């Protein structure tokens, strides 16, 4: 099982969700995040004083999948969030050792979906 973590532009969340649905991946968790990457930030100014904002608003997605679904998931994110511009984000894939569904204590592959 894999944990797929992705940072994407906030406005791409809906598109990513739609791509995931198409590939029948329905489980997803989302958090608000601030990111700093190749996208350099921008300058705000407040009362005449410059603020260098280099932590940009991002959305963090976590999807746990069985190994066989990993590729489809990555693909869905790439299609949904990719715009060929700096700031599109990153995907990280981590190994999961165990997964448990709290409701019925199912474990392993059967619990993840």
């Amino acid at each position, binding site marked *: 099982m894999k944990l797929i973590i992705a940072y994407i532009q906030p406005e791409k969340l809906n598109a990513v969700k739609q791509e995931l649905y198409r590939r029948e991946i329905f489980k997803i968790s989302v958090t608000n995040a601030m990111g700093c990457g190749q996208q350099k930030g921008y*300058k*705000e*100014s407040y009362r005449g004083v410059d603020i260098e904002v280099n932590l940009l608003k991002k959305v963090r997605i976590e999807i746990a999948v069985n190994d066989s679904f990993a590729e489809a998931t990555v693909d869905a994110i790439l299609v949904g969030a990719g715009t060929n511009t700096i700031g599109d984000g990153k995907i990280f894939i981590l190994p999961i050792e165990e997964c448990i569904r709290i409701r019925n204590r199912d474990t392993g592959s059967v619990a993840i979906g």
Partner: protein
Amino acid sequence: MKYRIFLMGLVMLLCTTGTLFADELSDAVALHQESLDMIWLLVAAALVFFMQAGFAMVEIGLTRAKNAGNIIMKNLMDFCAGSLVFWAIGWALMYGTSVKGMFGSSQFFILGADSTMFRDWMFQVVFAATAATIVSGAMAERTKFTAYLIYSVIISGLIYPISGHWIWGGGWLSTLGFHDFAGSTVVHSVGGWAALMGTLALGPRIGKYVSNGKKVASKAILGHNLPLASLGVFILWFGWYGFNAGSTLSGTDLTMANVAVTTTLGASAGAIAAMVISWIKFGKPDVSMSLNGALAGLVGITAPTAVVTPTGAIIIGLVAGLLVVFSVEFLDKTLHIDDPVGAISVHGVCGVWGTLAVGLFGATDSVRGLFYGGGIQQLSIQALGALAVCAWVVVTTGVLFFIIKKTTGLRVSAHEEMTGLDLSEHSAESYSGFQIFTNM
């Protein structure tokens, strides 16, 4: 003889002191009359001014967090710029010497004003700003700030004063007997129709209407701060006591009590109607619709407030509350016109309703409506007035928005809209530090 002279002297004295005394007294009484008018109108003007805060809070509350600062700027600046332009030309066009009943033509820069004219200008400027500020809500979340400044100045300085002249400045509609006590048409319809044209010129916000193949689905874009929106409605209602009751224009016109009562009942009925309808239609009593309902009732009762009975006021309010729900739904789901705060429905539609209601529910000798045995005379005049003002505003703001679109541009870029106008137009954040999901 002595005696005669004495008698004459006595009578004389009596006359003189009496007159002297009476003169002083009548001077004092005359001053009190002026003072009562003055105090009443200035307090009312302050209350109406405060409605700017109400409009700002409603608009902020019913839109997204990323545009709050832009909305603040619009609501602040339409008053500030509007008051300067209403000083320079607006007042003159509205209340100057009438040119064939079409527009005023004197008293530019309110030159030579005495305290009476200062008082009247003060009371009128806050109304002019209200008309302009209504537009802001409908065009929220996607309008260029420069474009906003331009059109709000032109509405306060040109469009509003001219149709205002027709009705309140001694122009042709007032001659016909058109009755709009506190401005359902003069203020609210003008704002509402301008809002309609603006919204049409702008198009909907990104993501508001999504086409799934052939069917266009309307998506909800939630307001981010209902407590502020509700505060705004309470402030507006509070200010409306100045707006309506102040429109007696005199501190000794005791019908102001009548006005306050019908205003209260109309607003209450509007909120209740909107709540009930939304409950029936959507399954739950909708918060923002009920708030809109109160405003709808207020707008509806604004024209007829001084000439209807409490019962009349309640019916007018109920209909307004009903109208606002159906109108919001119709504009959104059928016409796909995207009005984030419901300004067109509240001010345009209910403004017309209020204007017509005068011709239906008028219950005084001078203004008698259809349901009170007055025939359709008054009603037709009201309809004519509503139509004329609608035509005037639709045409002029149509041209205005067209020109703006072709020159400075009316709408921000898609990227700016997604980022939010706070960052793109003012490089500011309204809720610094707060974690806000901005994916919508």
